[in-house]
């Protein structure tokens, strides 16, 4: 959609508008639709695991990841270890930039937005199950991580 109106239209329109206050929409509307507790919990666990595996795969400690993302180390620890904690949208966005994955996908994984497709929901749950916490990042974990990064990169079309 392209507006094709002359400059004069807009300037007169600005004069009509003056310093009027603008705003529309439901103040407390939240686009996050209710999730089932099962999927929600799996999603948060998957998000924490993903952050942890990605970090360990790089050989970074939580502090290094926090520095790279511009976050507090406490936020990283909370994300990795507390599935009940709801991460801040801005924190998820910053992590997505560091990870090089689509922020949209990471919002879904973080449980901030309900996935629009059951395929993605299944991937989240499967990832959470496959990446059960172990002491070192072995080949299976690395494969799980790489498969999940690949799935995240396709999220724009799936979600």
């Amino acid at each position, binding site marked *: 959609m392209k507006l094709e109106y002359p*400059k004069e239209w*807009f*300037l007169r*329109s*600005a004069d009509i508008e003056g310093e009027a206050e603008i705003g*529309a*929409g439901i103040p407390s509307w939240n686009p*996050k639709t209710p999730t089932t507790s099962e999927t929600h919990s799996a999603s948060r666990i998957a998000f924490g695991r993903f952050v942890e595996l990605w970090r360990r795969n790089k050989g970074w400690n939580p502090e290094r990841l926090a520095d790279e993302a511009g976050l507090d180390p406490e936020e990283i620890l909370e994300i990795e270890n507390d599935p009940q904690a709801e991460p801040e949208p801005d924190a998820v966005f910053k992590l997505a930039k560091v990870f090089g994955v689509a922020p949209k996908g990471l919002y879904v994984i973080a449980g901030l*937005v309900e996935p629009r497709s059951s395929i993605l929901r299944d991937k989240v749950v499967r990832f959470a199950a496959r990446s059960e916490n172990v002491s070192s990042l072995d080949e299976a974990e690395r494969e799980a991580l790489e498969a999940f990064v690949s799935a995240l990169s396709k999220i724009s079309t799936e979600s």
Partner: protein
Amino acid sequence: MNESIVWLREGATGNPVQASLFDEITDDHLLLWSTTWSPEMRRYVAANAPTDRPEDSHWNWRIKSFSSSGLLSCHSFSLVCNGELQALMIARDLASAKLPGQFGQPLVHLEFVATAPWNRPEFHQPVRYKGCGRILILAAIEVSRACGGKGRIGLHSLPAAEDFYEQKCGMTLLGADAAHQNLSYFEMTETQADQFRRNQMKP
């Protein structure tokens, strides 16, 4: 993504300033929102009483944008001037009119409309730019015309903005909508949209 050349007036001088209206909210726009608009909103909220808090102060445009992106019925707009984000809007075209005589006719509903804090008189006097709101209304009218709504639009106004829609846009107030937190619901008919496009209201 389309870019339309539009014009605003600088609040302090009245000088015309060229701006761009994009029919998408991109990651770059959201980055501007999170690094400039959102921090200014947070500062204002922290410095003022809860009763003075803007009704949209907690809106997270990242989440709103993600939730609407990819949906064929949703239309997002970003207004940018001098590298700064000035206003945002998300509209939906699967709505129908409620006005008598228009009932059931297709209409574009403006789900969310907001201007940057520096374009609001309660934040800045004078405002940085004038004209953002009517540009978004014009964009919604054009979306409606393209979708078969003949320019019809509807919205639930935030309380402080009711005069704008009634006095500055010529929309009709239908009353408080109990299903939407008692916000005032406004509609613009095809005729009112034509009048808006002719831009003949008195300043």
